[in-house]
């Protein structure tokens, strides 16, 4: 130990002693401090070693990558040829292949319009315009692009929509349309008018209490029983309505959380300035509440995104449905696992990036209170 004396107050910053830094120290501190921890570490190693190599062998080392028929699958591992051949169907369902550009075009528009929203340097005005475009004009464009009819675009019936495309259509329109409904329900639930309040409570609790597949079943085959015969919208549309009502109940609870977090003073200040209820809601309360619950909204979206797989039970072919369909094609039997893995990776990529984004937002919103 150094016993060197420095003048009072002149002690320099010294590097920490050797036995407290470095890789070995880190390993000891983080993985082998104590018997229990060492056992846990060894156990974890064991888990990794038993799982990882076989997985890698199957998925990469002994996998088939090239070819265009089942005969190309000769090795022991996965046959990714299957995915290659069915790639378009997995992504777009049975959408006519010469019209797939329409879907891609809509993706491009969405990405181009959405990117500026994520940069804080872009002025608020432009962001508002873009958001309005995405929420109002874009859905109309999309509907026209997807469904076609008029102006030279061939009609593509909704039963031909499928794959990841259908997943996105259901999840995105579900979330976008359930937001306004959810906001109304949340406001209603906080209203002091007993009739409105109890209606909203019953509505929300009802939809939150029942499983989505029963909703889908009713929307897909029972709906015409409840309405006059003249009303018979498209099946996909009915499913969408079911999904929207279902997720609006969840959305309402998310928004309610945001509304509750707004201090009473904000309402009072708005009232004192002479703003009436609708104005103070639209100008003061909702902008704050919604911003606060963006992570919650994203999480609801992720939930909905995953739940779209249930539509395969009622005969719509989303990404998972398409994977299953492909795997039961007589020419391609035996590739169920590849199909599931592809679908799983697809869902994982989407959901994981969204949830990372929402966690990032949560951190930003938590710490960023001072600006």
């Amino acid at each position, binding site marked *: 130990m150094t016993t060197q004396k420095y003048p009072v107050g002149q002690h320099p910053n010294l590097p920490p002693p050797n036995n407290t830094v470095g890789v070995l120290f880190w390993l000891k501190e*983080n*993985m082998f*401090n104590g018997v229990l*921890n060492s056992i*846990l*570490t060894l156990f*974890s*190693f064991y*888990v*990794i070693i038993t799982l990882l190599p076989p997985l890698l062998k199957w998925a990469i080392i002994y996998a088939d990558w090239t070819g265009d028929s089942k005969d190309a699958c000769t090795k022991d591992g996965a046959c990714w040829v299957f995915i290659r051949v069915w790639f378009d169907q997995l992504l777009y369902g049975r959408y006519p292949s010469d019209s797939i550009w329409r879907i891609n075009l809509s993706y491009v528009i969405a990405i181009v319009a959405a990117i500026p929203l994520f940069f804080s340097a872009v002025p608020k005005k432009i962001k508002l315009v873009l958001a309005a475009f995405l929420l109002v004009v874009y859905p109309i464009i999309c509907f026209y692009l997807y469904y076609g009819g008029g102006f030279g675009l061939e009609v593509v019936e909704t039963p031909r929509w499928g794959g990841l495309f259908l997943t996105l259509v259901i999840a995105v329109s579900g979330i976008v349309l359930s937001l306004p409904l959810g906001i109304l329900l949340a406001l209603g639930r906080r209203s*002091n*008018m*007993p*009739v*409105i309040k109890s*209606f909203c409570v019953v509505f929300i*609790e*009802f939809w*939150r*209490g*029942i*499983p*989505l*597949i*029963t909703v889908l*079943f*009713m929307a897909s*085959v*029972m709906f*015409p*029983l*409840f*309405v*006059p*015969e003249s009303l018979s919208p498209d099946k996909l549309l009915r499913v969408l309505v079911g999904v929207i009502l279902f997720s609006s109940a969840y959305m309402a609870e998310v928004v309610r959380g945001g509304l509750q977090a707004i201090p009473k003073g904000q309402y009072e200040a708005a009232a004192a300035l002479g703003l009436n209820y609708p104005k103070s809601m639209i100008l003061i309360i909702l902008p704050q509440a919604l911003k606060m619950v963006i992570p919650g909204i994203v999480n609801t979206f*992720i939930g909905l995104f*995953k*739940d779209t*797989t*249930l539509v*395969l*039970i009622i005969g719509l072919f989303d990404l*998972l449905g398409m994977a*299953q369909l492909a795997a039961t094609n007589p020419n391609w039997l035996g590739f*169920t*696992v590849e199909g*599931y893995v592809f*679908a*799983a990776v697809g*869902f*994982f990529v989407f*959901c*994981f990036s969204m*949830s990372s984004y929402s966690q990032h937002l949560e951190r930003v919103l938590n710490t960023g209170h001072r600006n």
Partner: protein
Amino acid sequence: MTDQTKSSTPAKPPFWRDPDKRALVFQGVFLLLVVVVLFTLIRNTMLNLEARGISSGFGFLETSTGFKIAETLIPYDESSSFFTAFLVGLLNTIKVSVIGVFLATILGFIMGVARLSKNWLVARLSAVYVDTLRNIPLLLQLFFWYFAVLRPLKNPKQADNFFDIIFLSNRGLYGPKPIFEDGSGLILFALIAAIVGIIVLRIWAKKRMENTGERFPVFYTSLGLIIGLPLLALIGTGFPVSWDIPELKGFNFRGGMVMTPEFSALVFALSIYTSSFIAEIVRAGIMSVDKGQTEAAYSLGLKPSWTTRLVIIPQAMRVIIPPLTSQYLNLTKNSSLAAAIAYPDLVSIFAGTALNQTGQAVEIMGMTLAVYLFLSLTISSLMNWYNASKALVER
């Protein structure tokens, strides 16, 4: 001053400018609208049903079903009524939900705590577990567990045999089933006695600790009691229990207890999927407890294990319970995916087979929804009650 006052109550404005009256009118109109819509829906349904000559009413519940169900908790055969089938489905739903909730909670807590572990590797692994499982749809996981795990299992003739009493094959996991004979009442009695004993012991140990400060190993003693007493009774009465051991007869094992692949896959998928959410909830709950609490407890001389038990967990639970409730609700509702892999739950049996045999969609869906609503409300009110009883008292 008094003569200036016209009246002591404020003057009344016209109703459209009076917020109270406006609210009344608005609510009246809204209520009317809701009633009209509901009424139209119901009327339409009735008209449509009648126009198509579809039979309605709940008479079908008493007729016999004519189909068989693989797993039942109550006696059921082809001649049982549709109502019995309904109960069978309901009980099966409750069965998977309860077991699923139990396993998901345990697994979730382990994973949540592991993610906060100081052990870097353990924390990473549990993060991978959580992030992977919660981002893949449940239905996909269900198919995966069912088909991917079913395939490698052997057929009953080549079943994996454990000591000739437990057999694993693609028909499920067969094990011995205890059959209680005369005199086994004593074992039940011993079990009850053990439970009573444990309760008494706990009270006594608490009292003793309060009086003398001495602690008593309640947990291990309880464990000993609950195993030992029935065991003693068993020995004392000369083993009046015989075991029904599964035996391979023809195609399959007969006798014994079985855990079918459908049930296992469903429970597996449900509890693993839900546990990934619970892990996050637990982690957030523990992290919500201020570091100062641990420090205060340490500086009072409390050991880490006591600190966790007396200070951290009670506070974390308040944060954990509400989202945990919604996970329980989700799990219960998600058990309806059973239909996809042939587990006979309520949706599969009643809103599936029974609906198809009778064609009475409205009644059957109505009953099914009512059951799920009832289950949801029960779980959430139980949890709300628990939560209210534990709420922090603030100024």
